[in-house]
Protein backbone atom coordinates (compact mmCIF):
# COMPACT_ATOMS: atom_id res chain seq x y z
CA UNK A 1 0.00 0.00 0.00
CA UNK A 2 1.39 3.38 -0.97
CA UNK A 3 1.77 5.94 1.75
CA UNK A 4 0.05 9.29 1.64
CA UNK A 5 3.36 10.99 0.82
CA UNK A 6 3.91 8.68 -2.16
CA UNK A 7 0.40 9.46 -3.44
CA UNK A 8 1.06 13.20 -3.10
CA UNK A 9 4.28 12.78 -5.07
CA UNK A 10 2.44 10.94 -7.86
CA UNK A 11 -0.26 13.60 -7.95
CA UNK A 12 2.43 16.27 -8.24
CA UNK A 13 3.77 14.52 -11.36
CA UNK A 14 0.43 14.88 -13.16
CA UNK A 15 -0.09 17.72 -15.59
CA UNK A 16 -1.68 20.73 -13.86
CA UNK A 17 -4.54 20.83 -16.38
CA UNK A 18 -6.19 17.84 -18.00
CA UNK A 19 -8.03 18.29 -21.26
CA UNK A 20 -10.12 15.78 -23.24
CA UNK A 21 -8.54 14.31 -26.37
CA UNK A 22 -11.30 15.74 -28.57
CA UNK A 23 -13.91 18.50 -28.55
CA UNK A 24 -16.98 17.17 -26.68
CA UNK A 25 -19.25 20.19 -27.22
CA UNK A 26 -20.76 19.23 -30.64
CA UNK A 27 -22.12 15.98 -29.22
CA UNK A 28 -23.43 17.68 -26.10
CA UNK A 29 -25.10 20.48 -28.00
CA UNK A 30 -26.93 17.97 -30.24
CA UNK A 31 -28.46 16.35 -27.17
CA UNK A 32 -29.68 19.63 -25.72
CA UNK A 33 -33.27 20.69 -26.55
CA UNK A 34 -33.67 24.16 -28.01
CA UNK A 35 -34.79 26.66 -25.36
CA UNK A 36 -37.85 28.70 -26.19
CA UNK A 37 -38.63 31.87 -24.26
CA UNK A 38 -41.94 33.72 -24.30
CA UNK A 39 -41.73 37.13 -25.95
CA UNK A 40 -42.39 38.96 -22.70
CA UNK A 41 -39.31 37.39 -21.12
CA UNK A 42 -37.03 39.61 -23.15
CA UNK A 43 -38.91 42.69 -22.02
CA UNK A 44 -38.79 41.54 -18.42
CA UNK A 45 -35.11 40.82 -18.82
CA UNK A 46 -34.43 44.31 -20.06
CA UNK A 47 -36.48 45.80 -17.23
CA UNK A 48 -34.76 43.68 -14.59
CA UNK A 49 -31.31 44.47 -15.98
CA UNK A 50 -32.12 48.18 -16.06
CA UNK A 51 -33.42 48.17 -12.51
CA UNK A 52 -30.45 46.16 -11.22
CA UNK A 53 -27.96 48.34 -13.03
CA UNK A 54 -29.51 51.54 -11.78
CA UNK A 55 -29.93 50.10 -8.28
CA UNK A 56 -26.40 48.87 -7.72
CA UNK A 57 -24.48 51.37 -9.74
CA UNK A 58 -24.58 54.41 -7.46
CA UNK A 59 -23.70 52.22 -4.47
CA UNK A 60 -20.53 51.07 -6.20
CA UNK A 61 -19.40 54.45 -7.40
CA UNK A 62 -17.96 55.92 -4.19
CA UNK A 63 -15.81 52.81 -3.66
CA UNK A 64 -14.62 52.94 -7.24
CA UNK A 65 -13.85 56.62 -6.93
CA UNK A 66 -11.85 55.98 -3.74
CA UNK A 67 -9.84 53.23 -5.40
CA UNK A 68 -9.11 55.48 -8.36
CA UNK A 69 -7.99 58.32 -6.13
CA UNK A 70 -5.72 56.12 -4.01
CA UNK A 71 -3.97 54.68 -7.07
CA UNK A 72 -0.20 55.43 -7.16
CA UNK A 73 -0.10 56.48 -10.82
CA UNK A 74 -2.02 59.21 -12.50
CA UNK A 75 -2.46 56.93 -15.50
CA UNK A 76 -4.34 54.51 -13.28
CA UNK A 77 -7.42 56.73 -13.49
CA UNK A 78 -8.04 56.06 -17.14
CA UNK A 79 -9.30 52.46 -16.97
CA UNK A 80 -11.66 53.47 -14.12
CA UNK A 81 -13.02 56.33 -16.16
CA UNK A 82 -13.55 53.96 -19.06
CA UNK A 83 -15.46 51.59 -16.76
CA UNK A 84 -17.67 54.41 -15.53
CA UNK A 85 -18.36 55.60 -19.04
CA UNK A 86 -19.21 52.10 -20.22
CA UNK A 87 -21.48 51.55 -17.21
CA UNK A 88 -23.21 54.78 -18.01
CA UNK A 89 -23.59 53.79 -21.64
CA UNK A 90 -25.07 50.40 -20.68
CA UNK A 91 -27.43 52.03 -18.24
CA UNK A 92 -28.57 54.59 -20.80
CA UNK A 93 -29.09 51.92 -23.41
CA UNK A 94 -31.18 49.83 -21.01
CA UNK A 95 -33.19 52.85 -19.94
CA UNK A 96 -33.95 53.70 -23.54
CA UNK A 97 -35.02 50.16 -24.33
CA UNK A 98 -37.22 50.14 -21.25
CA UNK A 99 -38.75 53.48 -22.22
CA UNK A 100 -39.44 52.35 -25.77
CA UNK A 101 -41.11 49.20 -24.51
CA UNK A 102 -43.23 51.17 -22.02
CA UNK A 103 -44.32 53.56 -24.74
CA UNK A 104 -45.21 50.69 -27.05
CA UNK A 105 -47.30 49.01 -24.36
CA UNK A 106 -49.07 52.23 -23.39
CA UNK A 107 -50.09 52.79 -27.00
CA UNK A 108 -51.98 49.49 -26.85
CA UNK A 109 -54.21 50.75 -24.00
CA UNK A 110 -57.81 51.01 -25.21
CA UNK A 111 -58.69 54.03 -23.14
CA UNK A 112 -56.48 56.63 -21.53
CA UNK A 113 -57.97 57.61 -18.16
CA UNK A 114 -58.83 61.17 -17.17
CA UNK A 115 -55.81 63.12 -16.06
CA UNK A 116 -53.39 61.21 -18.29
CA UNK A 117 -54.47 62.46 -21.73
CA UNK A 118 -51.13 64.25 -22.10
CA UNK A 119 -49.05 61.25 -21.08
CA UNK A 120 -46.84 61.43 -24.17
CA UNK A 121 -46.00 65.03 -23.33
CA UNK A 122 -45.25 64.04 -19.76
CA UNK A 123 -42.93 61.25 -20.85
CA UNK A 124 -41.26 63.74 -23.21
CA UNK A 125 -40.60 66.05 -20.24
CA UNK A 126 -38.82 63.24 -18.38
CA UNK A 127 -36.88 62.27 -21.49
CA UNK A 128 -35.74 65.86 -21.96
CA UNK A 129 -34.70 66.07 -18.33
CA UNK A 130 -32.79 62.82 -18.67
CA UNK A 131 -30.99 64.23 -21.71
CA UNK A 132 -29.96 67.26 -19.67
CA UNK A 133 -28.53 65.06 -16.94
CA UNK A 134 -26.73 62.90 -19.49
CA UNK A 135 -25.21 66.03 -20.95
CA UNK A 136 -23.95 67.02 -17.51
CA UNK A 137 -22.64 63.48 -17.00
CA UNK A 138 -20.55 63.87 -20.11
CA UNK A 139 -18.53 66.47 -18.17
CA UNK A 140 -18.64 64.64 -14.84
CA UNK A 141 -19.14 60.95 -15.55
CA UNK A 142 -18.53 59.89 -11.95
CA UNK A 143 -20.80 62.43 -10.25
CA UNK A 144 -22.99 60.29 -7.95
CA UNK A 145 -25.57 63.05 -7.47
CA UNK A 146 -26.27 63.22 -11.19
CA UNK A 147 -26.58 59.47 -11.35
CA UNK A 148 -28.99 59.52 -8.43
CA UNK A 149 -31.03 62.17 -10.22
CA UNK A 150 -31.14 60.02 -13.32
CA UNK A 151 -32.28 57.12 -11.18
CA UNK A 152 -34.98 59.25 -9.57
CA UNK A 153 -36.34 60.34 -12.94
CA UNK A 154 -36.47 56.73 -14.05
CA UNK A 155 -38.35 55.80 -10.91
CA UNK A 156 -40.79 58.70 -11.30
CA UNK A 157 -41.49 57.64 -14.84
CA UNK A 158 -42.11 54.04 -13.79
CA UNK A 159 -44.43 55.17 -10.97
CA UNK A 160 -46.34 57.42 -13.36
CA UNK A 161 -46.87 54.65 -15.86
CA UNK A 162 -47.89 52.23 -13.10
CA UNK A 163 -50.42 54.78 -11.87
CA UNK A 164 -51.73 55.32 -15.40
CA UNK A 165 -52.28 51.59 -15.89
CA UNK A 166 -53.82 51.19 -12.42
CA UNK A 167 -56.21 54.11 -13.02
CA UNK A 168 -57.11 52.74 -16.43
CA UNK A 169 -58.14 49.46 -14.80
CA UNK A 170 -60.20 51.22 -12.14
CA UNK A 171 -62.16 53.61 -14.34
Amino acid at each position, binding site marked *: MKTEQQLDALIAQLAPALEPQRDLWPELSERLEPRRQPAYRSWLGVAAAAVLTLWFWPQQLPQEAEIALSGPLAGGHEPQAETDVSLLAVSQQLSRQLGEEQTRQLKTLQQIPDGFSDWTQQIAIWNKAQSQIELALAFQPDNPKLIQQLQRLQQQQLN*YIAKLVETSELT
Partner: protein
Amino acid sequence: MTKPFKLTVLMLALLQAPAWAAGEAIDQSRNVSASEKIEIENMRGEVRIVAVKANTFSVKGTLDEKAEGYELTSANGVTRFAVKMPRSNFGGWNSDKQEGSDLTIEVPVGSELKFSGVNANVSASGIEGGARLTTVNGKVDAEKLKGDIALETVNGEISSRDNSGRIHITTVNGQISDKGSAGTLELESVNGEISSQSSAKEVELEVVNGEGQLDLTGTERLEFSSVNGEIRAAIKNSKKPRISASSVSGASRLTLDADVSARFELEASAGGDIDNGLTSDKATRAKYGPRRHLEFRTGSGEGNVEISTVSGEIELKKH
Protein backbone atom coordinates in the same frame (compact mmCIF):
# COMPACT_ATOMS: atom_id res chain seq x y z
CA MET B 1 -106.16 65.32 -21.52
CA THR B 2 -105.05 68.29 -23.63
CA LYS B 3 -101.71 68.31 -25.37
CA PRO B 4 -100.22 71.28 -23.39
CA PHE B 5 -101.28 69.62 -20.14
CA LYS B 6 -99.57 66.36 -21.15
CA LEU B 7 -96.39 68.27 -21.98
CA THR B 8 -96.47 70.06 -18.64
CA VAL B 9 -96.84 66.74 -16.80
CA LEU B 10 -93.99 65.27 -18.82
CA MET B 11 -91.69 68.21 -18.10
CA LEU B 12 -92.48 68.10 -14.39
CA ALA B 13 -91.75 64.39 -14.41
CA LEU B 14 -88.37 64.99 -16.06
CA LEU B 15 -87.52 67.68 -13.53
CA GLN B 16 -88.22 65.22 -10.76
CA ALA B 17 -86.00 62.53 -12.32
CA PRO B 18 -83.03 62.94 -9.91
CA ALA B 19 -85.37 62.35 -6.97
CA TRP B 20 -86.62 59.14 -8.53
CA ALA B 21 -83.09 58.14 -9.29
CA ALA B 22 -81.93 58.61 -5.68
CA GLY B 23 -80.51 55.42 -4.26
CA GLU B 24 -81.71 53.15 -1.52
CA ALA B 25 -81.62 54.59 1.98
CA ILE B 26 -79.32 52.97 4.51
CA ASP B 27 -79.18 53.20 8.30
CA GLN B 28 -77.07 50.46 9.84
CA SER B 29 -74.85 50.13 12.87
CA ARG B 30 -72.68 47.45 14.50
CA ASN B 31 -70.86 47.12 17.81
CA VAL B 32 -67.16 46.95 17.07
CA SER B 33 -63.88 47.00 18.99
CA ALA B 34 -62.15 50.23 20.00
CA SER B 35 -59.29 49.51 17.61
CA GLU B 36 -61.38 48.02 14.81
CA LYS B 37 -59.93 47.75 11.31
CA ILE B 38 -62.51 49.36 9.07
CA GLU B 39 -62.57 49.00 5.30
CA ILE B 40 -64.93 51.12 3.23
CA GLU B 41 -65.39 50.91 -0.51
CA ASN B 42 -67.62 53.34 -2.37
CA MET B 43 -67.04 54.06 -6.01
CA ARG B 44 -69.06 57.26 -6.55
CA GLY B 45 -70.46 60.10 -4.51
CA GLU B 46 -69.74 61.78 -1.20
CA VAL B 47 -68.55 60.02 1.92
CA ARG B 48 -67.97 61.69 5.29
CA ILE B 49 -66.25 59.62 7.94
CA VAL B 50 -66.11 60.91 11.49
CA ALA B 51 -64.67 59.47 14.66
CA VAL B 52 -66.89 58.99 17.72
CA LYS B 53 -66.09 57.89 21.26
CA ALA B 54 -68.52 54.97 21.20
CA ASN B 55 -67.36 51.56 20.01
CA THR B 56 -69.83 51.45 17.15
CA PHE B 57 -69.70 51.55 13.40
CA SER B 58 -72.67 53.22 11.73
CA VAL B 59 -73.52 54.21 8.19
CA LYS B 60 -76.40 56.47 7.21
CA GLY B 61 -77.52 58.08 3.97
CA THR B 62 -78.36 56.92 0.50
CA LEU B 63 -76.61 54.45 -1.72
CA ASP B 64 -75.56 55.09 -5.30
CA GLU B 65 -78.60 54.83 -7.55
CA LYS B 66 -76.77 52.28 -9.64
CA ALA B 67 -75.77 50.24 -6.60
CA GLU B 68 -76.71 46.61 -6.45
CA GLY B 69 -77.01 46.63 -2.69
CA TYR B 70 -74.24 46.72 -0.15
CA GLU B 71 -72.07 44.42 1.92
CA LEU B 72 -71.60 44.97 5.64
CA THR B 73 -69.67 42.41 7.64
CA SER B 74 -68.09 42.66 11.06
CA ALA B 75 -66.02 39.86 12.58
CA ASN B 76 -62.70 39.32 14.35
CA GLY B 77 -61.92 42.98 14.69
CA VAL B 78 -62.50 43.79 11.02
CA THR B 79 -65.56 45.62 9.71
CA ARG B 80 -66.08 45.92 6.00
CA PHE B 81 -68.63 48.05 4.21
CA ALA B 82 -68.84 48.09 0.42
CA VAL B 83 -71.41 49.57 -1.92
CA LYS B 84 -71.84 46.96 -4.63
CA MET B 85 -71.69 48.37 -8.13
CA PRO B 86 -72.16 46.73 -11.51
CA ARG B 87 -68.87 45.95 -13.18
CA SER B 88 -68.71 48.85 -15.62
CA ASN B 89 -67.02 52.18 -15.86
CA PHE B 90 -67.68 54.68 -13.14
CA GLY B 91 -67.92 57.77 -15.31
CA GLY B 92 -65.27 60.35 -15.95
CA TRP B 93 -63.67 63.21 -14.14
CA ASN B 94 -66.13 66.01 -13.37
CA SER B 95 -69.00 63.55 -13.53
CA ASP B 96 -71.71 64.69 -11.18
CA LYS B 97 -70.83 63.49 -7.69
CA GLN B 98 -74.54 63.79 -6.83
CA GLU B 99 -75.09 60.70 -8.92
CA GLY B 100 -73.32 58.52 -6.40
CA SER B 101 -73.80 57.60 -2.76
CA ASP B 102 -74.25 60.17 -0.04
CA LEU B 103 -73.06 58.62 3.19
CA THR B 104 -72.09 59.61 6.70
CA ILE B 105 -70.10 56.98 8.51
CA GLU B 106 -69.12 56.93 12.18
CA VAL B 107 -66.20 54.87 13.47
CA PRO B 108 -64.45 54.57 16.84
CA VAL B 109 -61.67 57.09 17.51
CA GLY B 110 -59.04 54.36 17.84
CA SER B 111 -60.00 52.52 14.68
CA GLU B 112 -57.79 52.01 11.64
CA LEU B 113 -59.51 53.19 8.47
CA LYS B 114 -59.11 52.24 4.87
CA PHE B 115 -61.28 53.96 2.26
CA SER B 116 -61.19 53.46 -1.48
CA GLY B 117 -63.26 55.10 -4.18
CA VAL B 118 -63.07 56.12 -7.82
CA ASN B 119 -65.31 59.11 -8.54
CA ALA B 120 -65.79 59.92 -4.91
CA ASN B 121 -65.07 62.79 -2.57
CA VAL B 122 -64.08 61.63 0.88
CA SER B 123 -63.53 63.40 4.17
CA ALA B 124 -62.33 61.89 7.42
CA SER B 125 -61.69 63.41 10.83
CA GLY B 126 -60.55 62.48 14.31
CA ILE B 127 -59.43 58.90 13.62
CA GLU B 128 -56.34 57.96 15.62
CA GLY B 129 -55.47 54.42 14.55
CA GLY B 130 -54.24 55.36 11.10
CA ALA B 131 -56.06 56.10 7.84
CA ARG B 132 -55.63 55.39 4.18
CA LEU B 133 -57.93 57.40 1.92
CA THR B 134 -57.70 56.70 -1.78
CA THR B 135 -59.75 57.99 -4.67
CA VAL B 136 -59.10 58.63 -8.35
CA ASN B 137 -61.28 61.52 -9.44
CA GLY B 138 -62.26 63.36 -6.35
CA LYS B 139 -61.27 65.38 -3.31
CA VAL B 140 -59.70 64.07 -0.15
CA ASP B 141 -60.20 66.03 3.03
CA ALA B 142 -58.43 64.81 6.16
CA GLU B 143 -58.47 66.49 9.56
CA LYS B 144 -57.02 65.58 12.97
CA LEU B 145 -55.96 62.10 11.96
CA LYS B 146 -53.19 60.25 13.77
CA GLY B 147 -50.94 57.26 13.05
CA ASP B 148 -49.94 56.07 9.60
CA ILE B 149 -51.80 58.33 7.20
CA ALA B 150 -51.93 57.99 3.42
CA LEU B 151 -53.98 60.37 1.30
CA GLU B 152 -54.09 59.80 -2.42
CA THR B 153 -55.93 60.96 -5.52
CA VAL B 154 -55.14 61.30 -9.21
CA ASN B 155 -57.34 64.27 -10.13
CA GLY B 156 -58.60 66.35 -7.27
CA GLU B 157 -57.54 68.42 -4.29
CA ILE B 158 -56.12 67.01 -1.11
CA SER B 159 -56.62 69.02 2.02
CA SER B 160 -54.78 67.95 5.16
CA ARG B 161 -55.27 69.80 8.46
CA ASP B 162 -53.72 69.13 11.84
CA ASN B 163 -52.76 65.55 11.08
CA SER B 164 -49.91 63.88 12.92
CA GLY B 165 -47.93 60.68 12.57
CA ARG B 166 -46.36 59.29 9.43
CA ILE B 167 -48.13 61.23 6.72
CA HIS B 168 -47.86 60.45 3.02
CA ILE B 169 -49.80 62.57 0.53
CA THR B 170 -49.67 61.94 -3.17
CA THR B 171 -51.43 63.16 -6.31
CA VAL B 172 -50.81 63.25 -10.03
CA ASN B 173 -52.64 66.39 -11.17
CA GLY B 174 -54.31 67.62 -8.03
CA GLN B 175 -53.37 70.31 -5.58
CA ILE B 176 -52.13 69.49 -2.07
CA SER B 177 -52.72 71.80 0.84
CA ASP B 178 -51.31 70.79 4.20
CA LYS B 179 -51.56 72.79 7.44
CA GLY B 180 -50.51 71.94 10.96
CA SER B 181 -49.01 68.53 10.25
CA ALA B 182 -46.57 66.95 12.70
CA GLY B 183 -44.40 63.83 12.76
CA THR B 184 -43.02 62.90 9.37
CA LEU B 185 -44.41 64.21 6.11
CA GLU B 186 -44.04 63.05 2.51
CA LEU B 187 -45.61 65.04 -0.32
CA GLU B 188 -45.59 63.99 -3.96
CA SER B 189 -47.09 65.46 -7.09
CA VAL B 190 -46.45 65.24 -10.80
CA ASN B 191 -48.24 68.37 -12.02
CA GLY B 192 -50.08 69.73 -9.03
CA GLU B 193 -49.11 72.50 -6.64
CA ILE B 194 -48.13 71.70 -3.09
CA SER B 195 -48.23 73.96 -0.08
CA SER B 196 -47.49 72.99 3.47
CA GLN B 197 -47.26 74.75 6.81
CA SER B 198 -45.84 72.06 9.00
CA SER B 199 -43.89 71.36 12.15
CA ALA B 200 -43.00 67.84 11.04
CA LYS B 201 -39.50 66.77 12.09
CA GLU B 202 -38.85 65.11 8.75
CA VAL B 203 -40.23 66.37 5.44
CA GLU B 204 -39.86 65.06 1.91
CA LEU B 205 -41.32 66.75 -1.14
CA GLU B 206 -41.15 65.67 -4.75
CA VAL B 207 -42.65 67.42 -7.77
CA VAL B 208 -42.07 67.03 -11.47
CA ASN B 209 -43.67 70.07 -13.08
CA GLY B 210 -45.61 71.35 -10.13
CA GLU B 211 -44.60 73.98 -7.62
CA GLY B 212 -43.97 73.58 -3.94
CA GLN B 213 -44.15 76.03 -1.06
CA LEU B 214 -43.00 74.78 2.35
CA ASP B 215 -43.22 76.85 5.52
CA LEU B 216 -41.63 74.68 8.16
CA THR B 217 -40.97 75.08 11.85
CA GLY B 218 -38.46 72.97 13.76
CA THR B 219 -37.88 70.58 10.87
CA GLU B 220 -34.66 68.64 11.36
CA ARG B 221 -34.46 66.80 8.06
CA LEU B 222 -35.73 68.05 4.70
CA GLU B 223 -35.44 66.54 1.25
CA PHE B 224 -36.97 68.00 -1.86
CA SER B 225 -36.62 67.53 -5.56
CA SER B 226 -38.15 68.81 -8.76
CA VAL B 227 -37.63 68.36 -12.46
CA ASN B 228 -38.94 71.63 -13.89
CA GLY B 229 -40.92 73.00 -11.00
CA GLU B 230 -39.98 75.63 -8.45
CA ILE B 231 -39.73 74.78 -4.77
CA ARG B 232 -39.56 77.37 -2.03
CA ALA B 233 -38.76 76.10 1.41
CA ALA B 234 -38.47 78.24 4.53
CA ILE B 235 -37.44 76.70 7.84
CA LYS B 236 -37.60 78.41 11.21
CA ASN B 237 -36.23 77.25 14.55
CA SER B 238 -33.90 74.71 13.03
CA LYS B 239 -30.32 75.51 13.96
CA LYS B 240 -28.58 72.44 12.53
CA PRO B 241 -30.83 71.10 9.75
CA ARG B 242 -29.96 68.29 7.40
CA ILE B 243 -31.19 69.32 3.97
CA SER B 244 -30.82 67.66 0.62
CA ALA B 245 -32.36 69.07 -2.56
CA SER B 246 -32.04 68.62 -6.29
CA SER B 247 -33.59 69.84 -9.51
CA VAL B 248 -32.97 69.43 -13.20
CA SER B 249 -34.04 72.78 -14.63
CA GLY B 250 -36.27 73.85 -11.78
CA ALA B 251 -35.49 76.29 -8.98
CA SER B 252 -34.67 75.43 -5.36
CA ARG B 253 -35.08 78.39 -3.02
CA LEU B 254 -34.25 77.90 0.62
CA THR B 255 -34.65 80.31 3.50
CA LEU B 256 -32.96 79.49 6.81
CA ASP B 257 -32.46 81.04 10.23
CA ALA B 258 -29.75 83.70 10.19
CA ASP B 259 -27.82 81.87 12.93
CA VAL B 260 -27.98 78.45 11.30
CA SER B 261 -24.98 76.19 11.93
CA ALA B 262 -24.29 74.02 8.91
CA ARG B 263 -21.89 73.01 6.17
CA PHE B 264 -23.15 73.94 2.73
CA GLU B 265 -22.39 72.31 -0.59
CA LEU B 266 -24.11 73.75 -3.63
CA GLU B 267 -23.55 72.61 -7.18
CA ALA B 268 -24.89 73.54 -10.60
CA SER B 269 -23.69 70.95 -13.12
CA ALA B 270 -24.50 72.41 -16.49
CA GLY B 271 -25.36 76.07 -16.66
CA GLY B 272 -27.34 76.55 -13.49
CA ASP B 273 -27.12 79.57 -11.18
CA ILE B 274 -26.20 79.76 -7.51
CA ASP B 275 -27.28 82.78 -5.52
CA ASN B 276 -26.02 82.82 -1.94
CA GLY B 277 -27.83 85.33 0.23
CA LEU B 278 -26.77 83.69 3.46
CA THR B 279 -23.09 84.63 3.51
CA SER B 280 -20.73 86.60 1.28
CA ASP B 281 -19.27 83.41 -0.28
CA LYS B 282 -19.58 83.21 -4.04
CA ALA B 283 -19.79 80.23 -6.36
CA THR B 284 -16.76 79.39 -8.43
CA ARG B 285 -16.85 78.22 -12.01
CA ALA B 286 -14.92 75.16 -13.12
CA LYS B 287 -11.87 75.84 -15.29
CA TYR B 288 -13.22 73.44 -17.91
CA GLY B 289 -16.91 72.82 -18.43
CA PRO B 290 -20.04 74.61 -17.24
CA ARG B 291 -20.00 73.46 -13.59
CA ARG B 292 -20.41 75.94 -10.74
CA HIS B 293 -19.69 75.03 -7.17
CA LEU B 294 -19.90 76.61 -3.73
CA GLU B 295 -18.88 75.24 -0.34
CA PHE B 296 -18.91 77.13 2.92
CA ARG B 297 -19.74 76.79 6.57
CA THR B 298 -21.77 78.82 9.02
CA GLY B 299 -21.34 78.66 12.79
CA SER B 300 -19.66 75.45 13.84
CA GLY B 301 -21.11 73.54 10.88
CA GLU B 302 -23.30 71.07 12.78
CA GLY B 303 -25.99 70.68 10.15
CA ASN B 304 -25.59 69.78 6.51
CA VAL B 305 -27.10 71.38 3.40
CA GLU B 306 -26.55 69.87 -0.04
CA ILE B 307 -28.34 71.32 -3.04
CA SER B 308 -27.68 70.44 -6.65
CA THR B 309 -29.17 71.41 -9.97
CA VAL B 310 -28.33 70.70 -13.58
CA SER B 311 -29.41 73.89 -15.29
CA GLY B 312 -31.81 75.41 -12.77
CA GLU B 313 -31.42 77.92 -9.96
CA ILE B 314 -30.30 77.57 -6.37
CA GLU B 315 -31.06 80.40 -4.00
CA LEU B 316 -30.20 80.71 -0.31
CA LYS B 317 -31.73 83.37 1.92
CA LYS B 318 -31.96 84.09 5.60
CA HIS B 319 -35.02 85.06 7.69
